[in-house]
Protein backbone atom coordinates (compact mmCIF):
# COMPACT_ATOMS: atom_id res chain seq x y z
CA UNK A 1 0.00 0.00 0.00
CA UNK A 2 1.28 3.46 -0.86
CA UNK A 3 2.83 5.33 2.04
CA UNK A 4 0.89 8.53 1.30
CA UNK A 5 -2.37 6.56 1.56
CA UNK A 6 -1.25 5.09 4.85
CA UNK A 7 -0.38 8.58 6.05
CA UNK A 8 -3.87 9.85 5.27
CA UNK A 9 -5.49 6.97 7.15
CA UNK A 10 -3.10 7.51 10.04
CA UNK A 11 -4.26 11.12 10.26
CA UNK A 12 -7.89 10.02 10.16
CA UNK A 13 -7.21 7.43 12.85
CA UNK A 14 -5.35 9.89 15.07
CA UNK A 15 -7.92 12.65 14.96
CA UNK A 16 -11.06 10.52 15.13
CA UNK A 17 -9.48 8.67 18.04
CA UNK A 18 -8.46 11.83 19.85
CA UNK A 19 -11.87 13.48 19.42
CA UNK A 20 -13.85 10.44 20.50
CA UNK A 21 -11.36 8.67 22.77
CA UNK A 22 -12.34 10.06 26.16
CA UNK A 23 -16.06 9.71 25.49
CA UNK A 24 -15.44 6.13 24.40
CA UNK A 25 -13.43 5.45 27.55
CA UNK A 26 -16.47 6.46 29.61
CA UNK A 27 -18.79 4.41 27.39
CA UNK A 28 -16.62 1.31 27.70
CA UNK A 29 -15.80 1.57 31.40
CA UNK A 30 -19.44 2.09 32.35
CA UNK A 31 -20.50 -0.42 29.70
CA UNK A 32 -18.29 -3.07 31.30
CA UNK A 33 -20.04 -2.40 34.62
CA UNK A 34 -23.45 -2.41 32.93
CA UNK A 35 -22.89 -6.05 31.96
CA UNK A 36 -23.41 -6.68 35.67
CA UNK A 37 -26.28 -4.24 36.04
CA UNK A 38 -28.41 -6.74 37.93
CA UNK A 39 -25.76 -7.71 40.52
CA UNK A 40 -25.08 -4.00 41.08
CA UNK A 41 -28.78 -3.33 41.64
CA UNK A 42 -28.95 -6.32 43.98
CA UNK A 43 -25.91 -5.16 45.97
CA UNK A 44 -27.46 -1.74 46.51
CA UNK A 45 -31.11 -2.63 47.12
CA UNK A 46 -32.22 -2.35 50.74
CA UNK A 47 -33.97 -5.32 52.32
CA UNK A 48 -37.70 -5.34 51.59
CA UNK A 49 -40.79 -7.52 51.55
CA UNK A 50 -39.55 -9.18 48.39
CA UNK A 51 -41.14 -11.49 45.91
CA UNK A 52 -41.52 -14.42 48.30
CA UNK A 53 -44.01 -12.53 50.51
CA UNK A 54 -46.75 -13.33 48.00
CA UNK A 55 -47.14 -16.80 46.56
CA UNK A 56 -47.86 -17.20 42.86
CA UNK A 57 -51.32 -18.55 43.75
CA UNK A 58 -52.12 -15.28 45.54
CA UNK A 59 -51.17 -13.04 42.63
CA UNK A 60 -54.56 -12.93 40.84
CA UNK A 61 -56.11 -11.28 43.91
CA UNK A 62 -53.11 -8.95 44.22
CA UNK A 63 -53.45 -7.91 40.57
CA UNK A 64 -57.17 -7.16 40.90
CA UNK A 65 -56.77 -5.13 44.06
CA UNK A 66 -53.75 -3.22 42.78
CA UNK A 67 -55.50 -2.21 39.56
CA UNK A 68 -58.60 -1.19 41.51
CA UNK A 69 -56.47 1.15 43.64
CA UNK A 70 -54.07 2.26 40.91
CA UNK A 71 -55.75 2.07 37.49
CA UNK A 72 -52.60 3.50 35.90
CA UNK A 73 -50.79 0.26 36.79
CA UNK A 74 -52.94 -1.63 34.25
CA UNK A 75 -51.01 0.00 31.42
CA UNK A 76 -47.82 -1.93 32.19
CA UNK A 77 -47.11 -3.96 35.33
CA UNK A 78 -44.71 -6.78 36.04
CA UNK A 79 -45.04 -9.96 38.02
CA UNK A 80 -41.67 -11.26 39.20
CA UNK A 81 -41.30 -15.01 39.46
CA UNK A 82 -38.02 -15.35 41.36
CA UNK A 83 -36.89 -13.54 44.49
CA UNK A 84 -33.87 -11.25 44.30
CA UNK A 85 -32.72 -8.32 46.43
CA UNK A 86 -33.63 -5.75 43.79
CA UNK A 87 -37.20 -7.04 43.43
CA UNK A 88 -39.06 -5.08 46.11
CA UNK A 89 -42.29 -7.07 45.75
CA UNK A 90 -44.07 -9.66 43.62
CA UNK A 91 -45.81 -6.96 41.57
CA UNK A 92 -44.22 -3.74 40.38
CA UNK A 93 -45.07 -1.02 37.90
CA UNK A 94 -43.57 2.20 36.65
CA UNK A 95 -44.96 5.65 35.93
CA UNK A 96 -43.02 7.86 33.56
CA UNK A 97 -42.84 11.58 34.37
CA UNK A 98 -44.94 13.76 32.06
CA UNK A 99 -42.90 14.95 29.09
CA UNK A 100 -39.95 12.64 29.84
CA UNK A 101 -38.10 11.05 26.94
CA UNK A 102 -39.14 7.47 26.14
CA UNK A 103 -35.59 6.29 26.91
CA UNK A 104 -35.15 8.30 30.09
CA UNK A 105 -35.43 5.52 32.66
CA UNK A 106 -34.13 7.79 35.42
CA UNK A 107 -37.31 9.89 35.34
CA UNK A 108 -39.46 6.81 35.93
CA UNK A 109 -41.17 6.39 39.31
CA UNK A 110 -41.30 2.84 40.62
CA UNK A 111 -44.18 1.35 42.57
CA UNK A 112 -44.71 -2.03 44.20
CA UNK A 113 -47.62 -4.05 45.55
CA UNK A 114 -47.57 -6.86 48.04
CA UNK A 115 -49.99 -8.52 50.45
CA UNK A 116 -50.00 -7.56 54.11
CA UNK A 117 -50.35 -10.14 56.87
CA UNK A 118 -54.15 -9.73 56.87
CA UNK A 119 -54.28 -10.47 53.15
CA UNK A 120 -54.99 -6.88 52.10
CA UNK A 121 -52.93 -5.39 49.31
CA UNK A 122 -50.27 -2.93 50.31
CA UNK A 123 -49.02 -0.59 47.59
CA UNK A 124 -46.59 2.29 47.49
CA UNK A 125 -43.69 4.03 45.82
CA UNK A 126 -40.32 2.29 45.90
CA UNK A 127 -37.46 4.41 47.22
CA UNK A 128 -34.77 2.17 45.75
CA UNK A 129 -31.69 3.60 44.14
CA UNK A 130 -31.48 3.79 40.35
CA UNK A 131 -27.71 3.44 40.45
CA UNK A 132 -27.44 0.65 37.88
CA UNK A 133 -29.68 2.60 35.53
CA UNK A 134 -27.60 5.75 36.08
CA UNK A 135 -24.40 3.90 35.16
CA UNK A 136 -26.20 2.52 32.12
CA UNK A 137 -27.18 6.07 31.12
CA UNK A 138 -23.54 7.16 31.39
CA UNK A 139 -22.74 4.23 29.11
CA UNK A 140 -25.49 4.96 26.59
CA UNK A 141 -24.79 8.69 26.21
CA UNK A 142 -21.00 8.69 26.79
CA UNK A 143 -21.03 10.34 30.19
CA UNK A 144 -23.83 12.85 29.68
CA UNK A 145 -26.46 12.99 32.41
CA UNK A 146 -29.72 12.28 30.57
CA UNK A 147 -30.66 9.77 27.88
CA UNK A 148 -32.56 12.04 25.49
CA UNK A 149 -32.50 12.64 21.73
CA UNK A 150 -29.73 15.29 21.54
CA UNK A 151 -27.44 13.29 23.85
CA UNK A 152 -28.06 10.11 21.88
CA UNK A 153 -27.16 11.95 18.69
CA UNK A 154 -23.91 13.05 20.30
CA UNK A 155 -23.31 9.41 21.21
CA UNK A 156 -24.15 8.46 17.61
CA UNK A 157 -21.59 10.95 16.29
CA UNK A 158 -19.01 9.50 18.68
CA UNK A 159 -19.90 5.99 17.49
CA UNK A 160 -19.39 7.03 13.85
CA UNK A 161 -15.98 8.50 14.71
CA UNK A 162 -15.24 5.25 16.55
CA UNK A 163 -16.09 3.22 13.44
CA UNK A 164 -13.89 5.49 11.32
CA UNK A 165 -11.05 5.11 13.83
CA UNK A 166 -11.38 1.31 13.72
CA UNK A 167 -11.35 1.07 9.94
CA UNK A 168 -8.57 3.61 9.45
CA UNK A 169 -6.53 1.95 12.21
CA UNK A 170 -6.90 -1.41 10.50
CA UNK A 171 -5.74 0.03 7.17
CA UNK A 172 -2.74 1.67 8.83
CA UNK A 173 -1.76 -1.66 10.36
CA UNK A 174 -2.32 -3.81 7.27
CA UNK A 175 1.26 -3.67 5.95
CA UNK A 176 2.69 -4.99 9.22
CA UNK A 177 -0.33 -6.92 10.47
CA UNK A 178 1.07 -10.44 10.08
CA UNK A 179 4.59 -9.56 11.15
CA UNK A 180 3.50 -7.71 14.31
CA UNK A 181 0.56 -9.91 15.31
CA UNK A 182 0.73 -10.58 19.09
CA UNK A 183 3.74 -8.26 19.37
CA UNK A 184 3.96 -6.42 22.68
CA UNK A 185 7.55 -5.24 22.91
CA UNK A 186 8.35 -3.94 26.36
CA UNK A 187 11.57 -2.01 26.18
CA UNK A 188 13.12 1.37 26.53
CA UNK A 189 11.02 3.00 23.84
CA UNK A 190 7.74 4.07 25.50
CA UNK A 191 6.18 4.99 22.17
CA UNK A 192 6.72 1.43 20.90
CA UNK A 193 5.25 0.01 24.13
CA UNK A 194 2.12 2.15 23.91
CA UNK A 195 1.76 1.44 20.20
CA UNK A 196 1.99 -2.34 20.70
CA UNK A 197 -0.29 -2.22 23.75
CA UNK A 198 -2.83 -0.28 21.69
CA UNK A 199 -2.54 -2.45 18.59
CA UNK A 200 -2.83 -5.80 20.37
CA UNK A 201 -6.19 -4.86 21.87
CA UNK A 202 -7.43 -3.04 18.79
CA UNK A 203 -6.59 -5.74 16.26
CA UNK A 204 -7.47 -8.85 18.21
CA UNK A 205 -10.79 -7.55 19.49
CA UNK A 206 -11.65 -5.72 16.26
CA UNK A 207 -14.82 -7.81 15.60
CA UNK A 208 -16.09 -6.96 19.10
CA UNK A 209 -15.45 -3.27 18.47
CA UNK A 210 -17.00 -3.30 15.02
CA UNK A 211 -20.18 -4.80 16.45
CA UNK A 212 -20.20 -2.20 19.22
CA UNK A 213 -19.65 0.68 16.78
CA UNK A 214 -22.39 -0.55 14.44
CA UNK A 215 -24.97 -1.26 17.13
CA UNK A 216 -24.21 1.96 19.04
CA UNK A 217 -24.75 3.97 15.86
CA UNK A 218 -28.07 2.23 15.23
CA UNK A 219 -29.16 2.65 18.86
CA UNK A 220 -28.36 6.36 18.65
CA UNK A 221 -30.36 7.00 15.51
CA UNK A 222 -32.96 4.24 15.64
CA UNK A 223 -35.90 6.58 16.32
CA UNK A 224 -35.02 8.50 13.17
CA UNK A 225 -34.44 5.28 11.25
CA UNK A 226 -37.87 3.96 12.30
CA UNK A 227 -39.51 7.27 11.31
CA UNK A 228 -37.90 7.15 7.89
CA UNK A 229 -38.81 3.49 7.47
CA UNK A 230 -42.38 4.29 8.47
CA UNK A 231 -42.72 7.02 5.86
CA UNK A 232 -40.94 5.26 3.00
CA UNK A 233 -41.84 1.60 3.48
CA UNK A 234 -44.96 1.50 5.62
CA UNK A 235 -46.85 4.63 4.56
CA UNK A 236 -47.13 5.80 8.18
CA UNK A 237 -48.58 2.49 9.38
CA UNK A 238 -45.49 0.95 10.98
CA UNK A 239 -47.15 0.68 14.38
CA UNK A 240 -50.02 -1.36 12.98
CA UNK A 241 -47.50 -3.59 11.21
CA UNK A 242 -46.02 -4.48 14.60
CA UNK A 243 -49.52 -5.21 15.93
CA UNK A 244 -50.42 -7.39 12.98
CA UNK A 245 -49.99 -10.65 14.82
CA UNK A 246 -51.16 -9.38 18.18
CA UNK A 247 -54.57 -10.03 19.69
CA UNK A 248 -57.49 -8.76 17.65
CA UNK A 249 -58.81 -5.48 18.98
CA UNK A 250 -61.78 -5.98 21.22
CA UNK A 251 -64.44 -3.40 21.73
CA UNK A 252 -65.13 -3.84 25.43
CA UNK A 253 -62.73 -3.15 28.28
CA UNK A 254 -61.63 -6.25 30.14
CA UNK A 255 -62.02 -7.20 33.77
CA UNK A 256 -58.67 -8.14 35.40
CA UNK A 257 -60.52 -10.62 37.62
CA UNK A 258 -60.88 -12.77 34.49
CA UNK A 259 -57.14 -12.91 33.81
CA UNK A 260 -55.73 -16.38 33.45
CA UNK A 261 -53.69 -17.40 36.49
CA UNK A 262 -49.94 -16.71 36.05
CA UNK A 263 -49.18 -20.39 36.64
CA UNK A 264 -51.40 -21.30 33.69
CA UNK A 265 -49.63 -18.78 31.44
CA UNK A 266 -46.26 -20.16 32.48
CA UNK A 267 -47.51 -23.67 31.75
CA UNK A 268 -48.51 -22.63 28.21
CA UNK A 269 -45.04 -21.27 27.55
CA UNK A 270 -43.40 -24.32 29.06
CA UNK A 271 -45.40 -26.56 26.73
CA UNK A 272 -44.22 -24.41 23.84
CA UNK A 273 -40.55 -24.17 24.84
CA UNK A 274 -39.52 -26.63 27.59
CA UNK A 275 -35.97 -25.20 27.86
CA UNK A 276 -37.23 -21.66 28.38
CA UNK A 277 -37.13 -20.54 32.04
CA UNK A 278 -39.61 -17.72 32.72
CA UNK A 279 -38.47 -14.95 35.03
CA UNK A 280 -41.17 -12.31 34.74
CA UNK A 281 -44.66 -11.68 33.36
CA UNK A 282 -45.15 -8.23 31.89
CA UNK A 283 -48.83 -7.35 31.49
CA UNK A 284 -49.73 -4.62 29.01
CA UNK A 285 -53.05 -2.77 28.77
CA UNK A 286 -54.90 -5.51 30.66
CA UNK A 287 -58.08 -3.42 31.03
CA UNK A 288 -57.94 -2.12 27.49
CA UNK A 289 -59.22 -3.55 24.24
CA UNK A 290 -55.88 -5.17 23.30
CA UNK A 291 -54.51 -6.88 26.42
CA UNK A 292 -51.16 -8.64 26.18
CA UNK A 293 -48.73 -10.44 28.44
CA UNK A 294 -45.07 -10.98 27.71
CA UNK A 295 -43.64 -14.00 29.47
CA UNK A 296 -39.97 -13.02 29.81
CA UNK A 297 -37.21 -15.51 30.51
CA UNK A 298 -34.06 -17.20 29.31
CA UNK A 299 -33.03 -20.26 27.38
CA UNK A 300 -29.42 -20.94 28.37
CA UNK A 301 -28.71 -22.63 25.06
CA UNK A 302 -29.99 -19.77 22.91
CA UNK A 303 -29.34 -16.07 22.61
CA UNK A 304 -31.71 -13.58 24.21
CA UNK A 305 -33.07 -10.96 21.83
CA UNK A 306 -33.21 -8.20 24.48
CA UNK A 307 -31.26 -7.18 27.57
CA UNK A 308 -34.08 -8.52 29.78
CA UNK A 309 -34.07 -11.85 27.92
CA UNK A 310 -36.60 -13.19 25.44
CA UNK A 311 -40.38 -13.38 25.64
CA UNK A 312 -43.45 -15.11 24.35
CA UNK A 313 -46.46 -12.90 23.66
CA UNK A 314 -49.78 -14.25 24.93
CA UNK A 315 -53.36 -13.15 25.44
CA UNK A 316 -53.52 -12.89 29.25
CA UNK A 317 -57.22 -13.82 29.31
CA UNK A 318 -57.17 -16.89 27.09
CA UNK A 319 -53.54 -17.93 27.17
CA UNK A 320 -53.44 -18.01 23.39
CA UNK A 321 -49.88 -17.67 22.08
CA UNK A 322 -49.79 -14.59 19.84
CA UNK A 323 -46.13 -14.43 18.92
CA UNK A 324 -42.86 -16.28 19.45
CA UNK A 325 -40.81 -13.82 17.40
CA UNK A 326 -38.82 -12.83 20.48
CA UNK A 327 -38.86 -16.17 22.30
CA UNK A 328 -35.29 -17.36 22.95
CA UNK A 329 -34.60 -20.61 21.17
CA UNK A 330 -37.78 -20.44 19.06
CA UNK A 331 -36.92 -17.56 16.72
CA UNK A 332 -36.87 -17.96 12.97
CA UNK A 333 -33.83 -17.07 10.85
CA UNK A 334 -34.56 -13.38 10.20
CA UNK A 335 -35.46 -12.68 13.85
CA UNK A 336 -32.37 -14.58 15.05
CA UNK A 337 -30.23 -12.47 12.72
CA UNK A 338 -31.60 -9.18 14.04
CA UNK A 339 -31.55 -10.44 17.65
CA UNK A 340 -27.91 -11.44 17.24
CA UNK A 341 -26.92 -7.78 17.07
CA UNK A 342 -28.73 -7.04 20.32
CA UNK A 343 -27.26 -10.14 21.96
CA UNK A 344 -23.75 -9.27 20.77
CA UNK A 345 -24.08 -5.77 22.22
CA UNK A 346 -25.74 -6.73 25.52
CA UNK A 347 -23.87 -10.03 26.12
CA UNK A 348 -27.18 -11.88 26.38
CA UNK A 349 -25.85 -15.23 25.25
CA UNK A 350 -23.69 -17.91 26.84
CA UNK A 351 -24.63 -17.03 30.42
CA UNK A 352 -22.29 -15.82 33.15
CA UNK A 353 -19.00 -16.87 31.45
CA UNK A 354 -19.74 -14.59 28.51
CA UNK A 355 -20.75 -11.77 30.86
CA UNK A 356 -17.27 -11.97 32.39
CA UNK A 357 -15.69 -12.06 28.95
CA UNK A 358 -17.61 -8.92 27.98
CA UNK A 359 -16.69 -7.26 31.26
CA UNK A 360 -12.99 -7.83 30.55
CA UNK A 361 -13.27 -6.94 26.86
CA UNK A 362 -15.11 -3.77 27.89
CA UNK A 363 -12.30 -2.83 30.26
CA UNK A 364 -9.79 -3.70 27.53
CA UNK A 365 -11.74 -1.34 25.26
CA UNK A 366 -11.48 1.45 27.83
CA UNK A 367 -7.75 0.73 28.01
CA UNK A 368 -7.58 0.90 24.20
CA UNK A 369 -8.86 4.49 24.17
CA UNK A 370 -6.84 5.57 27.22
CA UNK A 371 -3.73 4.06 25.65
CA UNK A 372 -4.54 5.71 22.32
CA UNK A 373 -4.49 9.12 23.95
CA UNK A 374 -1.25 8.33 25.79
CA UNK A 375 0.25 7.25 22.49
CA UNK A 376 -0.71 10.61 20.98
CA UNK A 377 1.00 12.31 23.91
CA UNK A 378 4.10 10.10 23.67
CA UNK A 379 4.40 10.67 19.92
CA UNK A 380 4.62 14.42 20.48
CA UNK A 381 7.17 14.18 23.28
CA UNK A 382 10.15 16.52 23.18
CA UNK A 383 13.20 14.51 24.10
CA UNK A 384 16.27 15.80 25.84
CA UNK A 385 19.41 16.12 23.82
CA UNK A 386 21.63 13.02 23.88
CA UNK A 387 24.47 14.98 25.44
CA UNK A 388 22.38 15.81 28.49
CA UNK A 389 21.35 19.25 29.61
CA UNK A 390 18.05 20.44 31.02
CA UNK A 391 15.00 18.51 29.76
CA UNK A 392 12.97 20.53 27.28
CA UNK A 393 9.59 21.84 28.24
CA UNK A 394 6.84 19.75 26.72
CA UNK A 395 4.37 21.27 24.28
CA UNK A 396 1.37 22.96 25.86
CA UNK A 397 -1.20 21.08 23.78
CA UNK A 398 0.44 17.82 24.81
CA UNK A 399 0.35 18.75 28.48
CA UNK A 400 -3.30 19.75 28.15
CA UNK A 401 -4.20 16.53 26.36
CA UNK A 402 -2.40 14.46 28.99
CA UNK A 403 -4.20 16.31 31.78
CA UNK A 404 -7.57 15.97 30.06
CA UNK A 405 -7.05 12.24 29.47
CA UNK A 406 -6.07 11.61 33.06
CA UNK A 407 -8.80 13.86 34.48
CA UNK A 408 -11.68 12.60 32.35
CA UNK A 409 -10.83 8.90 32.40
CA UNK A 410 -9.82 8.59 36.03
CA UNK A 411 -12.52 11.07 37.02
CA UNK A 412 -15.07 8.70 35.52
CA UNK A 413 -13.57 5.75 37.40
CA UNK A 414 -13.50 7.66 40.71
CA UNK A 415 -16.99 9.06 40.22
CA UNK A 416 -18.54 5.70 39.44
CA UNK A 417 -16.94 4.00 42.45
CA UNK A 418 -17.93 6.74 44.88
CA UNK A 419 -21.50 7.00 43.60
CA UNK A 420 -21.88 3.23 44.07
CA UNK A 421 -20.79 3.60 47.70
CA UNK A 422 -22.97 6.68 48.19
CA UNK A 423 -26.03 4.63 47.27
CA UNK A 424 -25.83 2.80 50.59
CA UNK A 425 -24.58 5.61 52.80
CA UNK A 426 -27.14 8.15 51.59
CA UNK A 427 -30.09 5.77 51.61
CA UNK A 428 -32.78 7.11 53.91
CA UNK A 429 -30.96 10.42 54.36
CA UNK A 430 -31.85 12.11 51.07
CA UNK A 431 -35.19 12.54 49.33
CA UNK A 432 -34.15 11.46 45.84
CA UNK A 433 -31.22 9.07 45.73
CA UNK A 434 -31.09 9.06 41.93
CA UNK A 435 -30.45 12.81 41.88
CA UNK A 436 -27.70 12.32 44.47
CA UNK A 437 -26.04 9.64 42.35
CA UNK A 438 -25.72 12.29 39.67
CA UNK A 439 -24.45 14.92 42.14
CA UNK A 440 -21.81 12.61 43.58
CA UNK A 441 -20.63 11.33 40.20
CA UNK A 442 -20.32 14.72 38.51
CA UNK A 443 -18.82 16.39 41.60
CA UNK A 444 -16.05 13.79 41.66
CA UNK A 445 -15.68 13.78 37.87
CA UNK A 446 -15.26 17.56 37.54
CA UNK A 447 -13.07 17.74 40.64
CA UNK A 448 -10.79 15.13 39.04
CA UNK A 449 -10.67 17.03 35.76
CA UNK A 450 -9.91 20.27 37.61
CA UNK A 451 -7.22 18.56 39.70
CA UNK A 452 -5.57 17.12 36.59
CA UNK A 453 -5.30 20.55 34.98
CA UNK A 454 -4.21 22.19 38.23
CA UNK A 455 -1.51 19.71 39.19
CA UNK A 456 -0.51 18.47 35.76
CA UNK A 457 -0.99 14.97 34.34
CA UNK A 458 1.98 13.37 36.07
CA UNK A 459 1.14 14.17 39.67
CA UNK A 460 -2.62 14.02 39.19
CA UNK A 461 -2.46 10.57 37.63
CA UNK A 462 -0.96 9.19 40.86
CA UNK A 463 -3.42 11.07 43.06
CA UNK A 464 -6.42 10.06 40.99
CA UNK A 465 -5.38 6.41 40.76
CA UNK A 466 -4.98 6.41 44.54
CA UNK A 467 -8.43 7.99 44.86
CA UNK A 468 -9.86 5.40 42.47
CA UNK A 469 -8.36 2.65 44.62
CA UNK A 470 -9.73 4.20 47.82
CA UNK A 471 -13.24 4.76 46.45
CA UNK A 472 -13.33 1.26 44.97
CA UNK A 473 -12.16 -0.32 48.23
CA UNK A 474 -15.01 1.52 49.97
CA UNK A 475 -17.47 -0.79 48.18
CA UNK A 476 -16.46 -4.01 49.99
CA UNK A 477 -15.58 -1.99 53.09
CA UNK A 478 -19.16 -0.75 53.26
CA UNK A 479 -20.37 -4.34 53.15
CA UNK A 480 -17.91 -5.29 55.88
CA UNK A 481 -19.04 -2.40 58.08
CA UNK A 482 -22.66 -3.38 57.53
CA UNK A 483 -21.86 -6.88 58.79
CA UNK A 484 -19.77 -5.73 61.76
CA UNK A 485 -21.92 -2.79 62.86
CA UNK A 486 -25.60 -3.38 62.07
CA UNK A 487 -26.46 -0.21 64.01
CA UNK A 488 -25.03 1.91 61.20
CA UNK A 489 -28.21 1.32 59.21
CA UNK A 490 -26.33 -0.22 56.29
CA UNK A 491 -27.07 -3.65 54.91
CA UNK A 492 -25.13 -6.51 53.34
CA UNK A 493 -26.64 -9.22 51.19
CA UNK A 494 -25.16 -12.70 51.09
CA UNK A 495 -26.19 -13.74 47.60
CA UNK A 496 -23.41 -14.72 45.19
CA UNK A 497 -24.41 -11.79 42.95
CA UNK A 498 -24.05 -9.29 45.77
CA UNK A 499 -20.82 -10.80 47.10
CA UNK A 500 -19.53 -10.85 43.53
CA UNK A 501 -19.78 -7.04 43.46
CA UNK A 502 -17.70 -6.81 46.64
CA UNK A 503 -15.05 -9.24 45.39
CA UNK A 504 -14.84 -7.58 41.98
CA UNK A 505 -14.47 -4.17 43.63
CA UNK A 506 -11.75 -5.58 45.88
CA UNK A 507 -9.88 -6.90 42.85
CA UNK A 508 -10.44 -3.59 41.03
CA UNK A 509 -9.11 -1.65 44.01
CA UNK A 510 -5.97 -3.79 44.09
CA UNK A 511 -5.46 -3.15 40.36
CA UNK A 512 -5.72 0.59 40.95
CA UNK A 513 -3.21 0.35 43.82
CA UNK A 514 -0.77 -1.43 41.53
CA UNK A 515 -1.35 1.14 38.77
CA UNK A 516 -0.89 4.01 41.23
CA UNK A 517 2.36 2.45 42.49
CA UNK A 518 3.71 1.87 38.95
CA UNK A 519 2.67 5.37 37.86
CA UNK A 520 4.25 6.96 40.95
CA UNK A 521 7.51 5.15 40.18
CA UNK A 522 7.41 6.42 36.61
CA UNK A 523 6.61 9.96 37.75
CA UNK A 524 9.47 10.01 40.27
CA UNK A 525 12.16 8.03 38.52
CA UNK A 526 11.26 7.98 34.83
CA UNK A 527 12.88 10.17 32.19
CA UNK A 528 12.43 13.84 33.00
CA UNK A 529 11.78 14.83 29.37
CA UNK A 530 8.14 13.76 29.48
CA UNK A 531 4.77 15.05 30.64
CA UNK A 532 4.76 12.00 32.92
CA UNK A 533 7.67 13.18 34.99
CA UNK A 534 7.14 15.21 38.15
CA UNK A 535 10.84 15.96 38.37
CA UNK A 536 10.38 18.56 35.73
CA UNK A 537 6.63 18.96 35.83
CA UNK A 538 5.20 22.26 36.88
CA UNK A 539 1.59 22.94 37.84
CA UNK A 540 -0.37 23.28 34.59
CA UNK A 541 0.23 26.90 33.68
CA UNK A 542 -2.69 28.16 31.66
CA UNK A 543 -0.57 30.77 29.93
CA UNK A 544 -1.49 32.12 26.52
CA UNK A 545 -0.50 29.89 23.62
CA UNK A 546 3.09 30.25 22.59
CA UNK A 547 4.39 31.63 25.87
CA UNK A 548 6.60 29.40 27.96
CA UNK A 549 7.50 27.13 25.08
CA UNK A 550 11.00 26.71 23.87
CA UNK A 551 11.18 28.27 20.44
CA UNK A 552 13.96 25.87 19.55
CA UNK A 553 11.94 22.83 20.36
CA UNK A 554 10.50 20.92 17.41
CA UNK A 555 6.76 21.08 16.82
Amino acid at each position, binding site marked *: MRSDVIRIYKSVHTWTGIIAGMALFIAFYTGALTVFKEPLARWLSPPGAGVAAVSLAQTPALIVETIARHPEAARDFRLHLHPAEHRPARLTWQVRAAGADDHDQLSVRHYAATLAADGAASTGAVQASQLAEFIDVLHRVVGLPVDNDPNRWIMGAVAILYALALISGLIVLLPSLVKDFFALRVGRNPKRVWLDAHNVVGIVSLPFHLVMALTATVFAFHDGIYDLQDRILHGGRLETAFQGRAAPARQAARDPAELLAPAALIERVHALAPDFSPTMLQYLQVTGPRPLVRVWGHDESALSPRALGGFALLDPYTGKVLSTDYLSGRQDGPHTTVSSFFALHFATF*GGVPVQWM*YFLLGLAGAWLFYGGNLLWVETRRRKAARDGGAPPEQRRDVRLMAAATVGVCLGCVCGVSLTIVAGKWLHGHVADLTVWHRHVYYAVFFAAVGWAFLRGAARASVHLLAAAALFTFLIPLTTLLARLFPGLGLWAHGSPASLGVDLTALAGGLCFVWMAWATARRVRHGPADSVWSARDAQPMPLVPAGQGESPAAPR
Partner: protein
Amino acid sequence: MAGMTALGLLLALAGCVGIYLASPNQRWLAAAWPATPARIGGGLLLAAGLAALLQDFQAVVAGFVLATWLMLLFVLLPYLGALFPDKKGR
Protein backbone atom coordinates in the same frame (compact mmCIF):
# COMPACT_ATOMS: atom_id res chain seq x y z
CA MET B 1 -21.45 -23.30 34.13
CA ALA B 2 -22.39 -26.53 32.39
CA GLY B 3 -19.70 -29.19 32.12
CA MET B 4 -19.41 -29.15 28.35
CA THR B 5 -19.18 -25.36 28.33
CA ALA B 6 -16.29 -25.50 30.80
CA LEU B 7 -14.61 -28.22 28.75
CA GLY B 8 -15.10 -26.26 25.53
CA LEU B 9 -13.58 -23.12 27.03
CA LEU B 10 -10.63 -25.06 28.44
CA LEU B 11 -9.94 -26.74 25.10
CA ALA B 12 -10.11 -23.38 23.36
CA LEU B 13 -7.75 -21.93 25.97
CA ALA B 14 -5.25 -24.68 25.26
CA GLY B 15 -5.64 -24.09 21.51
CA CYS B 16 -5.06 -20.35 21.90
CA VAL B 17 -1.96 -20.92 24.03
CA GLY B 18 -0.61 -23.25 21.35
CA ILE B 19 -1.24 -20.70 18.60
CA TYR B 20 0.25 -17.89 20.68
CA LEU B 21 3.38 -19.87 21.53
CA ALA B 22 3.88 -20.61 17.83
CA SER B 23 4.11 -16.89 17.12
CA PRO B 24 7.56 -15.33 16.70
CA ASN B 25 6.25 -12.46 18.85
CA GLN B 26 5.35 -14.64 21.84
CA ARG B 27 7.06 -13.65 25.09
CA TRP B 28 6.36 -16.62 27.34
CA LEU B 29 9.25 -18.82 26.22
CA ALA B 30 12.82 -18.26 25.13
CA ALA B 31 11.96 -19.75 21.72
CA ALA B 32 8.66 -20.05 19.90
CA TRP B 33 7.16 -23.46 19.34
CA PRO B 34 7.49 -24.92 15.83
CA ALA B 35 4.90 -22.95 13.92
CA THR B 36 3.15 -25.54 11.78
CA PRO B 37 2.56 -28.31 14.34
CA ALA B 38 1.64 -25.83 17.08
CA ARG B 39 -0.82 -24.02 14.84
CA ILE B 40 -2.38 -27.24 13.58
CA GLY B 41 -2.63 -28.55 17.15
CA GLY B 42 -4.10 -25.26 18.30
CA GLY B 43 -6.62 -25.30 15.48
CA LEU B 44 -7.67 -28.85 16.35
CA LEU B 45 -8.11 -27.90 19.99
CA LEU B 46 -10.25 -24.94 18.95
CA ALA B 47 -12.37 -27.26 16.79
CA ALA B 48 -12.73 -29.66 19.73
CA GLY B 49 -13.68 -26.72 21.95
CA LEU B 50 -16.35 -25.68 19.47
CA ALA B 51 -17.67 -29.24 19.35
CA ALA B 52 -17.97 -29.23 23.15
CA LEU B 53 -19.74 -25.86 23.15
CA LEU B 54 -22.19 -27.17 20.57
CA GLN B 55 -23.38 -29.71 23.15
CA ASP B 56 -24.65 -26.89 25.39
CA PHE B 57 -25.51 -24.15 22.93
CA GLN B 58 -27.26 -23.61 19.63
CA ALA B 59 -24.79 -23.29 16.76
CA VAL B 60 -24.97 -19.51 16.49
CA VAL B 61 -24.46 -19.11 20.24
CA ALA B 62 -21.59 -21.61 20.33
CA GLY B 63 -19.91 -19.63 17.55
CA PHE B 64 -20.39 -16.33 19.38
CA VAL B 65 -19.10 -17.77 22.67
CA LEU B 66 -16.00 -19.18 21.01
CA ALA B 67 -15.31 -15.95 19.10
CA THR B 68 -15.68 -13.85 22.25
CA TRP B 69 -13.42 -16.21 24.20
CA LEU B 70 -10.77 -16.15 21.46
CA MET B 71 -10.75 -12.36 21.35
CA LEU B 72 -10.33 -12.13 25.10
CA LEU B 73 -7.59 -14.76 25.23
CA PHE B 74 -5.63 -13.32 22.32
CA VAL B 75 -5.71 -9.94 24.11
CA LEU B 76 -4.69 -11.41 27.46
CA LEU B 77 -1.93 -13.77 26.33
CA PRO B 78 0.43 -11.07 24.96
CA TYR B 79 -0.23 -8.90 28.03
CA LEU B 80 0.62 -11.80 30.33
CA GLY B 81 3.79 -12.25 28.31
CA ALA B 82 4.66 -8.59 28.82
CA LEU B 83 3.91 -8.69 32.54
CA PHE B 84 5.68 -12.01 33.17
CA PRO B 85 8.30 -12.39 30.43
CA ASP B 86 10.52 -15.45 30.15
CA LYS B 87 13.65 -15.63 32.29
CA LYS B 88 15.77 -14.00 29.63
CA GLY B 89 13.55 -10.93 30.07
CA ARG B 90 12.43 -10.91 26.46
